[in-house]
């Protein structure tokens, strides 16, 4: 393992791990993989006819964040989620930010996930993004930058919890002596938040988790969270709407439902309003929501804040609504729909990362320096045809972290960090988050669907 260059907050961990031989470490690592497979902590691979399930590869060397760094991240995330919520309230009501010329109206109205049907609608407790999974990276100078905001249905938190459990089982003695902050209270915090947003006048709200079903790639996470919170996990067909109220079908008849933690995108929620071909949703759900009889987390219409073009404007939102400088800066971004930027982008495709505005999971992306000429030409055509749908960013050299290789040695691999913020009565962020790691040498893509793995993330009580 790295010797002289170890940063101070890694020292205790290094000392503890150094007592392990390579075979011991390998054996423990295999035991963890086997346990994950047995427990079914897996995700489904889309487009695989055999319905293959894979474990999300887990690297046992933890990523460690000292208290000082975490305080900075936490403050930055709170600032960001506050600004995003103010922004969402604003664009669905007064639209001051547009009228004051901070964001051109065109960008909002052309947003694929802008729900104009919900203009003027008051969401419960005025919170739009209840659960936010912001992706952060560290640049070459060690600064944390925001890569994207995931304000729809961010997933991955179950791995945070399961990775920690696996680490505690494997290295029981280490946590106390090193001083690692716990993460296990996430489900309770989540439930507290969901109960907080219940419709007015419901003393003991029934909360459910709405899943697309067992074939969704994140189904494990859905059942995991439901079980941890002690709530029902329902599919669309388990729910029925009568007189603008939502009920679930039980063996004892229909029982009322007050809060839905939905892990389903807006488009699929209600075939009478959005996609009619959706078999996953609940006919009438939106009407019940509009009538104030059921609350949804996250609210409808948050997708506009996930738009990568909107991302460009978040620092301006922070300035506009909070009159503050962003604590966590954005990655420099070029908008293809601005003429000067467009020119720069198409002329420098070999230096840039291009992203489609409304894709996620590492899809719809061009890594300019590594792409073939044909791929770059294809993107150029696509960008010129639909500039609104593309942004570009310089290739950021993600920080690397020692990661175990198949032969038992350790090498640096690129990592990012997705902390999970909960916005209820107050904003809570469980210390750490999901550290994803690009397991392929040199790769910058950390998504689970594209060869990424994960690490446990340790936030320390102190700085060493």
């Amino acid at each position, binding site marked *: 393992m790295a010797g002289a260059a170890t940063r101070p907050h890694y020292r205790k961990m290094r000392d503890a791990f150094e007592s392990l031989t390579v075979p011991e470490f390998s054996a423990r690592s295999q035991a963890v993989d086997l346990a994950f497979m047995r427990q079914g902590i897996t995700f489904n691979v889309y487009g695989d006819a055999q319905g293959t399930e894979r474990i999300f590869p887990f690297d046992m060397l933890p990523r460690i964040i000292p208290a000082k760094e975490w305080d900075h991240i936490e403050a930055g995330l709170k600032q960001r989620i506050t600004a995003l919520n103010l922004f969402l309230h604003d664009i669905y009501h007064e639209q001051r930010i547009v009228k004051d010329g901070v964001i051109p109206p065109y960008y909002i109205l052309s947003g694929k996930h802008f729900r104009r049907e919900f203009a003027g609608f008051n969401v419960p407790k005025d919170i739009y993004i209840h659960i936010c999974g912001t992706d952060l990276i560290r640049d070459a100078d060690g600064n944390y930058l925001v890569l994207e905001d995931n304000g729809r249905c961010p997933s991955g938190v179950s791995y945070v919890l399961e990775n920690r459990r696996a680490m505690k089982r494997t290295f029981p003695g280490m946590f106390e002596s090193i001083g690692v902050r716990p993460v296990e209270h996430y489900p309770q915090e989540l439930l507290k938040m969901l109960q907080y947003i219940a419709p007015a006048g419901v003393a003991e709200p029934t909360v459910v988790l709405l899943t697309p079903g067992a074939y969704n790639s994140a189904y494990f996470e859905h059942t995991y969270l439901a079980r941890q919170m002690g709530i029902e996990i329902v599919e669309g067909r388990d729910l029925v709407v009568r007189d603008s109220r939502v009920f679930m*079908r039980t063996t004892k008849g*229909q029982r009322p439902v007050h809060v839905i933690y939905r892990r389903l995108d807006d488009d699929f929620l209600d*075939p009478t309003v959005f996609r009619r071909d959706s078999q996953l949703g609940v006919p009438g759900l939106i009407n019940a929501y509009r009538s104030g009889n059921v609350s949804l987390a996250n609210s409808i219409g948050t997708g506009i804040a996930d738009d990568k073009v909107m991302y460009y404007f978040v620092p301006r939102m922070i300035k506009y609504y909070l009159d503050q400088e962003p604590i966590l800066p954005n990655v420099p971004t070029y908008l293809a729909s601005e003429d000067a930027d467009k020119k720069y982008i198409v002329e420098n495709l070999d230096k840039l990362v291009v992203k489609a505005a409304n894709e996620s999971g590492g899809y719809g992306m061009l890594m300019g320096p590594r792409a073939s000429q044909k791929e770059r030409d294809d993107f150029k055509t696509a960008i010129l045809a639909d500039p609104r749908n593309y942004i570009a960013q310089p290739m950021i050299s993600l920080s690397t972290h020692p990661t175990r290789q198949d032969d038992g040695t350790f090498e640096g691999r690129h990592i990012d960090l997705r902390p999970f913020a909960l916005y209820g009565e107050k904003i809570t962020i469980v210390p750490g988050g999901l550290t994803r790691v690009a397991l392929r040498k040199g790769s910058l893509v950390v998504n689970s669907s594209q060869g990424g793995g994960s690490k446990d993330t340790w936030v320390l009580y102190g700085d060493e």
Partner: protein
Amino acid sequence: MLSRVANCLYWMSRCIERAENTARIVDTNLQLLLDIRNLDDSTLAEHWMPIVQSTGDDAEFLEKYPRATGQAVTDFLVFDTENPNSIVSSIAQARENARMVRDQITSDLWEELNRLYLWMRGPDARYMWQQSPTDFFTQIKNTSLLLLGLIYATFVHNEGWQFMQVGKFLERADKITRILDVRHKTFPEKGAPVTITQSDALEWSAILRSCSAWDAYKAAYGAEVRPEWAVELLLFNEEFPRSVRFCIEKLNDALHAISGVPARRYSNDAEKLCGRLLAELEYGSLDEVLAHGLHGYLDLLQFKFNEVGEALFNAYIFQPFLNLEDEILVQQEMQQQQ
């Protein structure tokens, strides 16, 4: 509890029981053949075809395989993923149902079931099967019993647990009648067998063994194997856990636990049909079965099990769903009236 969840628990439990019983019946037949000399193709088919018939999939089988050889039948019943009632399919369905209600079942149960599933799909199971079929079937049976034990010992005995009981005992009762039916040809159309050949005795002791009933039989009837006594034990014994009567009594208990209605009363058709069936078994006798003819009587029992199953589905699982298109229309009308 959610109807869908109740349905999944019911089927999970049923499929585990199904896999175990299929393993029992194939294993017993394999062992039985070791005792029979001069096996030719037609004798073999005579032994194997009833096994296929007992699963009710003879038509599907004959489509795929020209003859009922041991290899064909065991392939079909053990590893054939296209046969929905094969052991591998039953385990996959049990696991799929468990996965849908992963939040409702204990980690112990899920991990063990998942382990069985991964093992069945991997190379180890086939290897063990080739090396020693008996070890293989013992592995299936033992895992199934472990799962039953986990359900009993690690689950809260709540409504969901009762649905698992229902699934288990309904499947077990059904399989007992099917196993008995495998050798119904020993019996004349009506009445008891007149003479019992050595191979009859062997076959019927195999039946008893496949229901783990050999010890119970010896304790009750001694070492002489008489087919009608075996039938009596497996249909009417009050205390033997793999008798039909025992299963129906437990089924009846579970149904009443679900509804909360006291015994000897009923609140839905499932309870009514089950209560009546239980009374028939409590007050029935071997003579009645023989007078009716064994095969016909078993058929009738299976029909009644199905009736209970359907009534159960109607009472708890199925609540009149509109189909999605109709439901969309209903919602749009309601919204326009507002």
